[in-house]
């Protein structure tokens, strides 16, 4: 098995911020268009997720932030099978019930053909992509301050989608108020993400995927019963790399 790290591209990540004028949380959760996108290299706190009630001008308004990222893994999946992947994100402050879970997204034109737009706020499927979550209440502690990265172990659904699509398209959402829609927020609940350093200068704190992969079953030769071994990396829907023997014959 081999490993590699793939960093998110500059134009393939950002946080969509929404909620200006919304005085109803449920309406905001169904809204298709955000107000602004924050991305790039900045020094101030950067929202990753937010599910908040804000008392400001006029009545109480709500704020919703979702963090989107798209990773190109096609260079790996063309001749390898991903067996394990860990999404790593550098964190900043968690306030109140700020939290983050990783879910499937269809933003970025789904296949990465588009940049992130405010109109993609609702391009989410609800499918969970990670087996662990961070924040409060009751999730793992979100590490902040450049000391280390927070690691999301991607689940089998995410791994299978990466292998079949050649990309990983994710959204980070507040778990309790946004993804699970348990309650209407009454305070400012958010979780911050760290600076996204410019490409080529310092990737340390850039959102990244640590991937473990296997070469596709080349030991079987180019074909088996006339079927290319790397045709979708699968034989009868079974990943070739997961097949150690066929009729007791090792690959």
């Amino acid at each position, binding site marked *: 098995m081999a490993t590699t790290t793939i960093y998110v591209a500059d134009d393939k990540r950002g946080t969509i911020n929404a909620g*200006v*004028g*919304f*005085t109803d949380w449920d309406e905001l959760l169904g809204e298709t268009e955000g*107000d*602004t996108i924050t991305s790039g290299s900045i020094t*101030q*706190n950067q*929202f990753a997720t937010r599910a908040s009630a804000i*008392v*400001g*001008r*006029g*009545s*109480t*308004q709500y704020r919703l932030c979702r963090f989107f990222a798209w990773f190109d893994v096609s260079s790996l999946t063309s001749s390898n099978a991903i067996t394990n992947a860990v999404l790593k994100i550098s964190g900043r*402050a968690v*306030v109140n019930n700020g939290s983050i879970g990783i879910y499937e997204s269809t933003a970025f034109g789904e296949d990465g053909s588009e940049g992130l737009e405010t109109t993609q706020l609702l391009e989410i499927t609800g499918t969970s992509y990670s087996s662990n979550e961070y924040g409060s209440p009751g999730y793992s502690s979100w590490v902040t301050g450049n000391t280390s990265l927070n690691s999301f172990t991607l689940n089998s659904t995410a791994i299978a989608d990466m292998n079949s699509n050649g990309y990983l398209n994710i959204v980070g959402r507040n778990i309790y108020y946004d993804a699970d829609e348990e309650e209407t927020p009454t305070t*400012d609940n*958010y979780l911050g993400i760290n600076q996204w350093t410019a490409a080529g200068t310092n990737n340390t704190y850039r959102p990244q995927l640590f991937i473990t992969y296997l070469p596709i079953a080349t030991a079987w030769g180019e074909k088996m019963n006339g079927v290319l071994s790397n045709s979708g990396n699968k034989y009868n829907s079974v990943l070739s790399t997961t097949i150690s023997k066929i009729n007791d014959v090792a690959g």
Partner: protein
Amino acid sequence: MNFREQTLEFTDKKIYYIDKKTGEEIQVMMDWEDELMKKSAEYVCENGGDILEIGFGMGISANYIQSHNIKSHTIIEYHPQIYNKAQIWAADKPNVNLILGDWMSSLNLLSTYDGVFYDTFGDDNIKLFGDIIKDYVNEGANLTWWNDCLGEKNIFGWEDVTYDWIPAKPILNNYFKSSVYFLPKKKF
């Protein structure tokens, strides 16, 4: 942090502060609201008489209220920096009664009014306003409030509220984004 404790910045175009936790610029009021303030003042001054304005802000609506034929103009301002600006503004206006504080704790200083404009920031008692203000208005009084909702939404639960649709051209801000301002009109 309570709004009263925020350090405000004043420019010709807006009042704002920087949220120390998030780094966000939070606008309190902006000059693109001028037309909305004018229309609001027209409605609350329709009867003339005694006018109550809760929230001075940039003083835009206060200037428009002063341009109408009214008897008195009571202003409640919560933030001390804005209150200081209002004091300077009111120095040559004998019919202005300026109060420092939040409206809830200023009730004992109030009379009854023929027009009320409620436009506050960070008011924790907003949900109580609808019930309480009914005791401070004269019959036939006109009341409006800053309506940040994206539609004809009546946050106070009053009956018989009508709305004027006013075209709005907000520049990027964190409190209002619609191209229409739904000016609420409540007659008591």
